[in-house]
């Protein structure tokens, strides 16, 4: 008989080994799935996980990994603070949209003036927009005890309506023949977040790496990081240690909102280029998976975002080269989270075989 026995402390070994095992299990089960669909499993797995990095056209795909990964890193880093402290901000997608709207508004307001101050102003507006949107669920929780999971999630749908209204109305391109969508900020030299488009480098990539370093130092060296960890592990102990729980909620929500807002701003001023009705592509939700896949650890998040970006890009290659249906790729991504949660049992529990011997 197989029994699970709770460990006194989470296993150090499995904390690091679980994600690796989860990826391996995903590859094995994914391979079986692909085989069942009539594709060669080895070739498919190689196409998804290997080709973007080392194939003939990797010179194009590698920069794409940066573009796809940067917003995931930024948002997931922000979310990791709250998730560690037990603040469940599920609405990063909405904060991402608001950051993009506010940042783009500043850029469009200055069009067509050229100045070095425009992009920094847009960055500030983007961070502020995301921050303000996150403050709504934050303040409601602190003042009225509402559930931030529901409020932040519902605000995503509000943000989407706002986005549609901007694309159709206030921010519509006056030269766009009445079609929805704003001017293209990527083509506006003072407002674009691109540093080098061919290399996949935009300011969001730079900020993502800075955020990783910043988060690492904060969480491991700073008193705030200690408070965050303590609040997640033991809210009562945190209170005795002098943590103001309301303030902690607001700061955690604020960091997540501001970083999600930045991600949105860099996306709208670079890879996406314009405010359109369906500008948001689900980064805010995918980042939740990335945060947990990366164990809420900054370096882990960096690796996890890279892996997710890989499955997106490799998945598209597999679709067109191997005629794999899009749903198969989504199943593969779902498996990744599923196996991670399943394997996580090993971190907190010991597997015992045989019945317990009574002393």
């Amino acid at each position: 008989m197989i029994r699970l026995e709770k460990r006194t402390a989470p296993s150090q070994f499995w904390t690091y080994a679980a994600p690796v095992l989860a990826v391996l299990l995903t590859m094995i089960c994914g391979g079986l799935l692909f085989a069942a669909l009539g594709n060669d499993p080895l070739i498919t797995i190689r196409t998804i996980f290997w080709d973007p990095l080392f194939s003939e056209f990797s010179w194009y795909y590698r920069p794409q990994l940066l573009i796809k990964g940067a917003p995931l890193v930024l948002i997931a880093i922000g979310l990791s603070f709250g998730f560690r402290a037990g603040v469940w901000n599920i609405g990063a997608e909405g904060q991402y949209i608001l950051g993009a709207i506010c940042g783009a508004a500043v850029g469009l307001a200055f069009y067509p003036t050229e100045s070095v101050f425009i992009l920094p102003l847009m960055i500030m507006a983007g961070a502020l927009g995301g921050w303000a949107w996150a403050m709504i669920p934050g303040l409601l929780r602190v003042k009225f005890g509402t559930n931030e999971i529901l409020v932040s999630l519902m605000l995503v749908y509000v943000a989407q309506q706002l986005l549609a209204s901007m694309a159709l109305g206030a921010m519509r391109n006056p030269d766009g023949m009445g079609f929805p969508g704003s001017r293209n900020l990527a083509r506006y030299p003072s407002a674009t977040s691109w540093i080098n488009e061919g290399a996949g480098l935009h300011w969001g990539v730079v900020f993502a790496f800075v955020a990783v370093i910043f988060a690492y130092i904060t969480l491991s060296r700073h008193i705030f990081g200690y408070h965050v960890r303590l609040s997640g592990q033991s809210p009562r102990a945190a209170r005795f240690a002098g943590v103001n729980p309301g303030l902690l909620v607001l700061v955690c929500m604020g960091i997540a909102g501001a970083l999600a807002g930045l991600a949105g701003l860099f996306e709208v001023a670079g890879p996406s280029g314009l405010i359109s009705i369906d500008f948001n592509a689900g980064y805010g939700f995918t980042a939740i998976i990335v945060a947990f896949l990366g164990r809420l650890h900054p370096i882990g998040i960096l690796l996890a975002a890279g892996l997710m970006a890989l499955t997106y890009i490799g998945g598209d290659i597999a679709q067109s080269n191997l005629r794999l249906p899009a749903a198969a790729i989504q199943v593969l991504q779902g498996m990744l989270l599923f196996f991670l949660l399943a394997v996580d049992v090993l971190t907190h529990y010991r597997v015992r075989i045989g019945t317990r011997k009574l002393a």
Partner: protein
Amino acid sequence: MKIKTLLAGTGIALALATGAFAQDPTKVGFIYVGPVGDGGWTYEHDQARLAVEAEFSDAVETFYVESVPEGPDAERVITQMALQGADLIFTTSFGFMDATVNVAERFPDVKFEHATGYKTADNVSAYNARFYEGRAIQGHIAGQMTESNIIGYIGSYPIPEVIQGINSAFLHAREVNPDVEFRIIWAYTWFDPAKEAEAASVLIEQGADVILQHTDSTAPQAAAQAAGNVITFGQASDMAEFAPFPRVSSIIDDWAPYYIERTQAVIDGTWESSNVWHGIPEGMVGIGEITDAVPAEIKASAEVMIEAIRAGEYHPFTGPINYQDGSVWLEEGDVADDETLLGMNFFVEGLAGDIPQ
């Protein structure tokens, strides 16, 4: 040893020979906004892709990526197809326009065809169908079939193509029924069965007994079927599995002749950038069978209208037509020009509500 060498030699010679004779197939890529099984818009594009394969067999190789979001991902997927050596790429949704133009700049030797947009370049063509011609037929039938005088309309995005459809359907419904009213819900999606079903239910609750849709799934058809006394029209595809009731007719997009023609042009080296807008006369817009749920005289008059459009004798936007505020748009006998239609961002007189701004 000798035999081995001989065999190897023959093998190489054979490989060289076949290599010299077999021509490289022309590679044609397709980017879809929805899944190929949506039963509507993307399904029809994929049917046309299969028609291209059937037409050219070994001379052409096709491939596709489905459910591509309209945004930065589209640019990556299109680039990837170009890198794979595609000679011709069809991008089949309005939202792929900027991405298509951007990628086309970097791959001057690859030909691009973008559906339903307005931007073209030396290697980018635009193509679209005059769906509003089919909408006129729908309005004509719907206006006479409704008993509650309320027609529900599920709009996708408030872009000119969709607004043309609403105006065209409304004008022709009013023509046969002065009391008819339209209720419009904007779904802000091309394909989301749950949202579409919900929109249909809301419209039915508001008393609509006809549902017109400009979204791609069959969910509204299923919602109407569940309600029992509501009629619908197939959108983009025949949706015949819901015939004869609730689906009483349909607009069918037939892209196959165009895709075959353009593929042939690439093979022949005669491809040139163009901007086409075809309708019922060219066969790009087809009207699915009008079922027996429609009384014979209504069916007959609808067929007269189809033939008039096919023959070029009737244009669905023929004056007198007023703007929503009552001011004159088209005088008696005037016909709308394509430029106005392509940028249409206004409702005609009689429609209630505003276009979302």
